[in-house]
C-alpha cells in the first residue's frame, strides 16, 4: 500500500467504532486513573492491509536466516558459554511476550480512545508473533546445539525455578492489578520503551560476537515492531497526563516500574551479557556501558525528562539509584555470583571465568577482582566433581543471601538490605525502593487517596521456602533437572561435555537445603537483629578452601 493510501485507509477505519447504547460499559479491568474522552491520535496509522505483507516480509528474512544457520552449521562456532545462558533467557522471554498480548484489553477497556484501541489490537498480534517466533528459535537451539538438556524442559523449568519466577514479574506485571499501571506504565512506557533496547538490541550484538547470528535475526525482527508499541504507550501516557488527578499515580507507577525492572532485567541481562560472553576485546561495551547509552541517555535523558514539560514527575532519584547499583555497586556481578552459587538448582550450565575474563572485568569494572576474583577462582577449582560439594556447600566464606520480597532477586548488595515485619511475617528487601514497592505502592491507598484497583503481591515469593529441610538430590529430582540416565544433572558448573566430568545427584545426596526466610522467622527478636546486622556487613571470601 502506498503511503498516501495508508493515511486515507487509516482515516477510514476510524468509522468502525461506535458508542454502545444497549449496554452500560462495565470494564472488567479496573483503574484508578481517570480519562477524558478522545485525545491522542495514532501517528503510526496502522491498517491491517498494509501490516500483514510487511510482517510476512520480515518473517521471510527470519526463516531464511534460520535455514542458512542450519545449512551452514552455525553451531560449529557458537560459544557454549553463551548458548547455556540462552537456556535461561529463552525460557523466560516468551511468557512476557505473550503476556503483553494478553495485556491489551486492559487498556481497550480503560482508555476511551478507539484510535488507540486499534493500535493495541496490532500490538496484541505482534506479541503472539514474538512469543511463538522465540519459542521456535529455542527449538532450533535444542535441535542443533551440542547439549540440548535444559532446552528440552524449557517451559517446565521456567515455571518451577527461582530465576524463572524473577523473570515472570516481567509478564505478570503487565496483566494484573490496575489496568493503567500494568499495561501502560509497566509494560509500554517502561518495559517496551526502556528495556527493549537492552534486551533486543544489546543482546543480539553480544550474541553475534559469540558466533550466534540467529538470535540477532529473530530479536531485531521483534524489535522492529516495538516502535509501534512505544507509540501506543506514549499516546496513552499523554492522555493520562492531561488529567492532574493522575499525576501522583503516574509517579508511583514510574517509580515501581523503573525500579522493579531495573532489579529484574539488569540482573538477568547484565549477567548474560557480561558473564555469558567470550568476547573480551577491551573496546567491546560492557553491560554498564550499554546501560548508560540505551537506558540513561536514550531513555531517561531523551524520552522521560522531556515529558516533564507535560507535568510528568520523573523520579530522578530512582533512576540514579539504579545507575549507581550498576556502575558503582556491582549489582549484576553479585547476581552472576549468586546464579553460579546456585548452579545445582539451575537448568543451564555456567562456565567458570578465566584469567582473560578477569582482566576484562577489572578493566571495565575497576575493583572487580578484589570483590569477585577469588570466589571465581574457587568456582573453577570446584567445577569438576572430585570429592567435594557444590560450591554453595563448601567453605568459601560466601553467605547465602536472603531474597528480596519484592523483586525476588536476593539482597546482594548487603548493606542496602532492609528487614521489616509486613503482613504478619519478617521480610527482607534488597533496597529501599523494593521495600517501598511492598509497603507503599502495592497498597490500598497512595498519598492519602484510595487506590482500590491496585494489585497485590502474592504467591510463595521465597523460592527456598518450598524446599526448606530437603535433601539437595531430592530437590533436583523434584524439579526434573536430571538427565535421561536418571542421575546426571542438567546444570553443570562448567561447559565440558565428557560424561566423567559431569555432576550427578549422587554428588548432592546428603546435603540439606535451607530457606533463609524460614530461619529468619524462627529466630528470636534478639537473634534476628543480630543476624541482620551481621548480614549487612557482608562477608569475606577465604583465600583457600
Amino acid at each position, binding site marked *: 500500500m502506498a503511503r498516501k493510501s495508508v493515511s486515507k485507509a487509516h482515516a477510514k477505519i476510524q468509522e468502525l467504532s461506535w458508542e454502545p447504547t444497549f449496554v452500560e460499559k462495565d470494564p472488567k479491568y479496573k483503574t484508578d486513573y481517570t480519562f477524558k474522552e478522545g485525545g491522542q491520535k495514532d501517528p503510526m496509522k496502522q491498517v491491517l492491509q498494509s501490516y500483514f505483507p510487511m510482517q510476512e516480509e520480515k518473517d521471510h528474512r527470519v526463516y531464511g536466516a534460520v535455514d542458512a544457520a542450519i545449512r551452514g552449521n552455525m553451531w560449529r562456532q*557458537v560459544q557454549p558459554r553463551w548458548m547455556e545462558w540462552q537456556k535461561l533467557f529463552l525460557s523466560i522471554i516468551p*511468557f512476557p511476550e505473550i503476556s503483553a498480548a494478553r495485556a491489551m*484489553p486492559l487498556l481497550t477497556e480503560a482508555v476511551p480512545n478507539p484510535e488507540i484501541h486499534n493500535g493495541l489490537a496490532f500490538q496484541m498480534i505482534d506479541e503472539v508473533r514474538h512469543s*511463538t517466533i522465540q519459542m521456535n528459535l529455542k527449538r532450533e537451539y535444542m535441535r*542443533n546445539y551440542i*547439549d540440548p538438556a535444559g532446552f528440552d524442559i524449557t517451559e517446565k523449568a521456567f515455571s518451577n525455578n527461582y530465576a524463572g519466577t524473577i523473570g515472570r514479574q516481567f509478564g505478570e506485571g503487565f496483566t494484573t492489578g490496575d489496568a493503567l499501571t500494568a499495561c501502560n506504565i509497566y509494560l509500554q512506557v517502561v518495559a517496551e520503551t526502556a528495556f527493549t533496547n537492552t534486551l533486543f538490541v544489546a543482546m543480539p550484538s553480544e550474541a553475534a560476537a559469540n558466533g550466534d547470528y540467529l538470535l540477532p535475526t529473530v530479536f531485531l525482527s521483534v524489535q522492529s515492531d516495538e516502535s509501534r508499541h512505544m507509540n501506543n504507550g506514549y499516546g496513552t501516557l499523554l492522555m493520562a497526563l492531561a488529567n492532574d488527578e493522575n499525576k501522583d499515580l503516574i509517579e508511583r507507577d514510574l517509580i515501581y516500574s523503573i525500579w522493579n525492572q531495573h532489579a529484574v532485567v539488569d540482573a538477568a541481562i547484565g549477567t548474560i551479557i557480561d558473564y555469558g560472553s567470550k568476547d573480551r576485546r577491551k573496546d567491546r561495551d560492557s553491560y554498564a556501558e550499554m546501560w548508560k547509552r540505551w537506558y540513561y541517555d536514550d531513555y531517561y535523558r531523551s524520552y522521560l525528562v522531556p515529558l516533564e514539560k507535560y507535568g510528568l514527575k520523573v523520579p530522578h532519584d530512582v533512576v540514579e539509584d539504579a545507575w549507581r547499583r550498576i556502575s558503582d555497586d556491582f549489582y549484576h556481578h553479585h547476581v552472576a555470583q549468586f546464579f553460579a552459587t546456585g548452579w545445582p538448582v539451575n537448568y543451564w550450565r555456567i562456565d567458570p571465568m578465566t584469567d582473560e575474563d578477569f582482566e576484562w572485568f577489572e578493566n571495565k569494572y575497576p575493583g572487580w577482582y578484589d570483590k569477585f576474583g577469588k570466589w571465581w577462582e574457587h568456582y573453577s577449582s570446584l567445577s569438576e566433581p572430585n570429592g567435594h560439594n557444590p560450591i554453595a556447600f563448601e567453605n568459601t566464606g560466601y553467605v547465602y543471601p536472603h531474597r528480596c520480597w519484592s523483586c525476588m532477586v536476593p539482597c546482594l548488595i548487603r548493606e542496602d538490605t532492609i528487614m521489616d515485619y509486613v503482613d504478619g511475617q519478617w521480610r527482607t528487601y534488597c533496597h529501599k525502593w523494593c521495600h517501598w514497592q511492598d509497603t507503599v505502592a502495592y497498597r490500598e491507598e497512595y498519598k492519602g487517596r484510595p487506590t482500590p484497583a491496585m494489585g497485590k503481591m502474592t504467591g*510463595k515469593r521465597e523460592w527456598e521456602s*518450598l524446599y526448606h529441610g530437603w535433601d539437595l538430590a531430592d530437590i533436583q529430582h523434584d524439579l526434573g533437572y536430571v538427565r535421561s540416565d536418571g542421575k546426571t544433572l*542438567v546444570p553443570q558448573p562448567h561447559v565440558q561435555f565428557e560424561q566423567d566430568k559431569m555432576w550427578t545427584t549422587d554428588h548432592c545426596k546428603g546435603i540439606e537445603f535451607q530457606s533463609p526466610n524460614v530461619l529468619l522467622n524462627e529466630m528470636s527478636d534478639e537473634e534476628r537483629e543480630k543476624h541482620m546486622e551481621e548480614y549487612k556487613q557482608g562477608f569475606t571470601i577465604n583465600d583457600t578452601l
Partner: protein
Amino acid sequence: MSEPGPEGRPILEAAGRPGRSIPQVVLTDAEAGAAEFAGSTSRVFNYFTPQKRRNTTYENVTVDVQPDPERYLTQGWIYSFADGTMGYEADWTRMKSSDWHAYRDPNGEWERTFYRHQTRNVHQVQQTMELARTTNVFADWDEKWLEIFAKHVSTWMHPEHGLGMYVFVRAQREAMTNMHNNAISVMAIHKMRAAQDIALLNLEVSQQLPDKFDESVHQEVWMEDPMWQGVRENVERMFVLGDWAEEVFAANIVFEPLVGELFRSGFVMHAAPLQGDYVTPTVIGLIRTEYERDLNATRDMFTLLVEDEEHGEENKQVMQEWLDKWVPLSIKAAQGLEPIWSEPEVQAMSFEESFGQAKSRFEDILSDLGLQLTEELVQK
C-alpha cells in the same frame, strides 16, 4: 579431526583494519552430536504430551508458555488483582475442565502460518480491488445496489469490528491456557481484518464514484436503522460478558451461523453478482472462509468440554442456558434484517430460504456438540 576443547581455537586473529576491532571467529565444535553424554540426544520438548504421535511445531511454540499452578508453577502466581483474583483463574468461565491443557487449535495457528494466511488474503483482496479499479467495474453497479452497498453491506463492518475488538481481544486475556488464548487472538484479528476490508472497499467505491455514493451513511444505519438494531444489540451484549467461554460461544456458535452467515452468505454472496458486483463477494467470501476456521477451533474447544468425563454434563447444561439466552437475541437480529432481502432489483434467494439454511447449519453445529434447542426456541 583433532580435538578442539570446548573453548575452541581461534581460526582468525582479530586483526581487522587499523583502528577497528572485530570479534574473533572461533571453532567450538558445539554442534549436535559432537559428543555423547547423558541427555545429549534429548532434542524434543518433553514436558507435555502431544495430541498425536509427535510434537507439532504449533504445539512446540504454544503449549505451556502460559504456566499454571496445576502444572509446574510451584511458587504460584506472584501478582494478583486488587480483590486477590489471580492472573488466570479457572472460574472466569462457568465451563469446567478436568484438563484445560488438552486443547489444541485444530488450525495449528502460530505466527508463521498466521502471517502467511493473512498476507495471502490481503493480496487476494488487493488484487481484486486493483482489478476492479483498473477495469472500472464499479460503474456497472446497479444504482439500487450501490445504495444497498452503502447502507447495508458496508454496515456489516461494525459487527465484525465489535466482535474482534471488544469481544475476542478481551476473551484472549482470560482463558486458562495459551492454546485457547492464541486461538482466540487469531479470531480477533480475523474479525478486525474483515471489518477493515469492508471499510476499505467502501473507501474504494467512494473514490471511484464520488458523486453517487454516500460513504458514511453506514454509521447512521448502524446506530439508528431499525433493521440493524437487533444486530447491534446482540453484538453490544457480548461486550459486557465476564465469561470468556460464553463470549466465544455466543459469537461463534450462535451469532455467526444465525446472523453472520445469514447476511454474508445468505444475502451478499448471492445477491451481489446478480447486480453486477463481483468484487464484494471476494471480500465477504474470505470472511466466510475465516469463520470456518474459527468455527473449527471453537467446536473443538467446546467438544472437549462437553465430553469431559467429570464436568461434561454440567457444561452441557450451562451451554443450554447460554443457548436460551443468546438464540433469541440472534434470531431477533436475523429477522430484523429481513427487509434487506427484497431491496435489490434482481432477487436471489428469499429471506426464508436463507434463514432456513442458516438455521439448519446452526442445528448441525449444535448436534456436533450434542446440544439441542428447547421447544420454545424451535418454534421461533
